[in-house]
């Protein structure tokens, strides 16, 4: 993290589960620094999704996203809370937030 401009960088923990980790080299937990776009003063889930698609997803992006949001069957959680409760794509992220993406399981 740049100490002079830490404002423009955000430390986040991203976790992938339910099979989504297979899209990121089978790594479940990613500690990342997300750089905010020029002039941006906040990072939303919408920004994060496009950052993930560019920087983390190595294969089959259609298994993670559909349009500009997550694909059907994927739950997004910000600090252990469904993103539907915090504004979905508009959810504003804060330093050290934990964002979990989990694909729903059907097996038994």
């Amino acid at each position, binding site marked *: 993290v740049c100490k002079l401009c830490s404002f423009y960088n955000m430390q986040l923990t991203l976790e992938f589960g339910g*099979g989504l980790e297979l899209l990121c080299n089978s790594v479940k937990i990613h500690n990342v620094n997300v750089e905010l776009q020029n002039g941006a003063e906040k990072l939303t889930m919408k920004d994060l999704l496009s950052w993930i698609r560019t920087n983390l997803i190595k294969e089959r992006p259609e298994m993670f996203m559909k349009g500009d949001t997550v694909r*059907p*069957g994927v739950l997004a959680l910000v600090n252990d809370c*469904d993103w539907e409760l915090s504004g979905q794509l508009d959810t504003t992220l804060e330093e050290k937030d934990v964002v979990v993406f989990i*694909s729903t399981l*059907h*097996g*038994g």
Partner: protein
Amino acid sequence: DSGYGHDLSPQMIHRYSRHLLLPSFGVQGQSKLLKSSILVVGAGGLGSPVLLYLAACGAGRLGIVDHDVVELNNMHRQIIHTEGFIGQPKVKSAAAACHSINSTIQVVEYQEPLRTSNALEIMSKYDIVVDATDNAPSRYMISDCCVVIGKPLVSGAAVGLEGQLTVFNYNGGPCYRCLFPTPPPTTACQRCSDAGVLGVVPGVIGCLQALEAIKIASGVGEPLSERMLLFDAFSGRIRNVKIRGRSLQCVVCGENAPFSKQQFQEFDYENFTQSPLTPLPLKLNLL
């Protein structure tokens, strides 16, 4: 009433004494449990511990739905079945096991696949439904049916080294469709028989499903409604997350869309999810 303010026979008091001793459970919790009826759909990896613990604890009437037969490759996780039952219906095997640990409860066998044509009739006869199936169309169908007939649903799933658990349609909480209005692509729907599963993972989730059913039936504790438990066996971590409530826009339980019995019976779940309700077992050609 026995004159003691409850209906428990001396035999029952003996059998369930460790429940009766619990101040927060006690005679009242046990009495409610004994009067409850619970339907378990699926007598496989999840259904095995669900059925064993529900039978043991004294759930009054236990229904089992499964159309499958016991196979050798089930035995690593489906602990309710013994080798002697290989080739026989799972329902028969599971019912025999339930009876052998508790001959005082009623067990009802449904040796048939659950479909829109029989779901309403079967599920209506029970207070609580436990989804222990292994495929997406069944999960939508069971949840929709629970909304139509107003029953709480204890939903568990396990694949690979992960498991998930929640309670749907309970006390104003969300249904399966509130969470997943659109079915996932079929390529995202791995089943245990295709993708593999560590046998004890459905064991953990199944025990937790039995617990949730017991909590609802006895009126003791806080069921996992609007919450979901995410289990990662590899790291041993369990997350307890808060999920959305009932959605006003839900096409099944929402404001403007009370799904009718007829709509339910005419809904094509296989077409909706693009996968079969009773998938054919994969023939494994390892090596």
